């Protein structure tokens, strides 16, 4: 591993992994406790529509992904809060529609699409330097927002009905949560790809939730676990010459299953 650090791309990948695990640990904790895992998966896949649009109109696909995932997040947050009973079906539909729009737009745009796969399966080794600053800004932004609205976010995740009765602006706090989720999901997409993003968002939080006694500890532990999974996954991928995103997810997935087994033994 040490000799791998002489490469710029490896150093960038490690730094990016450390930075993203902070956002991932904080947002993932709320995604798991508020049970919006499915919604987050849908946000990730709807983002593909934006990637397609970027290719089609010739702008940076990442911008398209941001725009689509934010629109999907806000839209689905509204749907979930209004039509509770059928919201999962609608969210599933948006999931597929976003993906289909992306695929068709990419079909139509023609030309050479070498880095298309990197959006699907991730390319942490190709993270450019400027993305690191974007990641740092994301981390700081999320930490600030969560600090400001911490008690409302906790209350919303714990008991939405009670929060409504307390006249907390539940709709706005929910939108804030899904917006942070959308931003995190798009940034993580660069590392592990949109297909696997949801696993990296939720598994560290799910593991830490089994042992942490408070939400703050759950976030810290989830961030540490996320960083560990990314680092060990990267090392595996370097050592065995395998796809980095898949290695990271496998490490996280095996750890999650192991934690379930340990928890049941205790």
């Amino acid at each position: 591993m040490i000799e791998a650090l002489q490469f710029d791309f490896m150093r960038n990948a490690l730094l990016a992994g450390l930075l993203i695990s902070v956002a991932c640990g904080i947002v993932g904790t709320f995604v798991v406790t508020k049970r919006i895992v499915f919604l987050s998966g849908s946000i990730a896949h709807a983002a593909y529509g934006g990637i397609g649009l970027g290719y089609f109109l010739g702008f940076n696909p990442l911008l398209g992904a941001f725009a689509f995932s934010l629109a999907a997040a806000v839209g689905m947050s509204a749907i979930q809060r209004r039509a509770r009973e059928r919201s999962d079906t609608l969210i599933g539909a948006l999931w597929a529609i976003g993906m289909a729009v992306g695929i068709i737009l990419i079909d139509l745009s023609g030309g050479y699409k070498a880095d298309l796969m990197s959006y699907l399966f991730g390319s942490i080794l190709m993270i450019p330097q400027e993305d690191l600053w974007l990641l740092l800004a994301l981390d700081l932004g999320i930490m600030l927002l969560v600090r400001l609205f911490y008690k409302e976010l906790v209350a919303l995740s714990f008991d939405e009905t009670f929060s409504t009765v307390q006249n907390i602006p539940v709709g706005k706090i929910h939108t804030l949560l899904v917006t942070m989720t959308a931003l995190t999901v798009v940034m993580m997409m660069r590392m592990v790809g949109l297909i696997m993003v949801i696993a990296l968002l939720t598994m560290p939080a799910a593991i830490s939730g089994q042992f942490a006694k408070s939400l703050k500890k759950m976030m810290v532990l989830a961030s540490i676990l996320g960083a560990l999974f990314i680092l060990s996954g990267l090392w595996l991928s370097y050592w065995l010459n395998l796809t980095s995103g898949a290695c990271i997810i496998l490490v996280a997935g095996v750890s999650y299953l192991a934690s379930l087994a340990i928890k049941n033994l205790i």
Partner: protein
Amino acid sequence: MKQKVISLKGVWAGYGNNNVIEDINFSVKKGDFVGIIGPNGGGKSTLLKVILGLITPYKGEVKVMGLPPEEGREFVGWVPQESDMDRDFPIKVLDVVLMGRMGRKKLLRSYSKEDKNKALGALEMVGLQNIAQKPIGEISLGQRQRVYIARALAKDPEILLLDEPLASVDPNTSEVIYGLLKDLNESRAITIVMVTHDVGAVSSYVKSVGCLNRKLYYYDEKTLTQGMIDAAYHCPVDLIAHGVPHRVLPKINQEETKR
């Protein structure tokens, strides 16, 4: 005449196109302790949601403390069904109770010393001050139910609204909780509206009884007479006429005969 803290006039409400409660006329006076019984699907939770402003009725008027429910609920302490809650949520008892201190005005502010004192005071009222620092997942069902009562009390409510406070609690615990509610009603003059399956407890603790099965049969009486209890017990018989299968009544009848 005492002030009406809750009043419903000709209220029809439900979900989508599905009417659950019909033509509800119901008012609660300050200091009352109302028990509402009725079968599953009879609309008990719907009635509470209407009072809390969580469901807008199709027809009729709802007032809480003389205000529309969205504003009137500022004065309401809400105790949900324990079974609706997430037991794995990593949070301490005190932090749950503190949620009762939240509100629109307190956005962007941390809890004050006063909030913490109120929350601890509420925990003391329910006799749980010694487990304030425990995670919510590590305490018993009955304790958790009392934590939710404490959370509702932390806001100094005028009205306490409880949805099945004793579902899945053992008999000893239910006596503790009923005793607590009775005390809150008598010594702190908190108006209580409680929805329950437990017809027996209703007869021994509450001041007024309502029976809800789409329509509300309400007995606004200070003292329960045998005739009223009979009428309340008989109200599920109406259900059979409505073709709704019913499980509460036979069980209670058996218990009655055993005694």
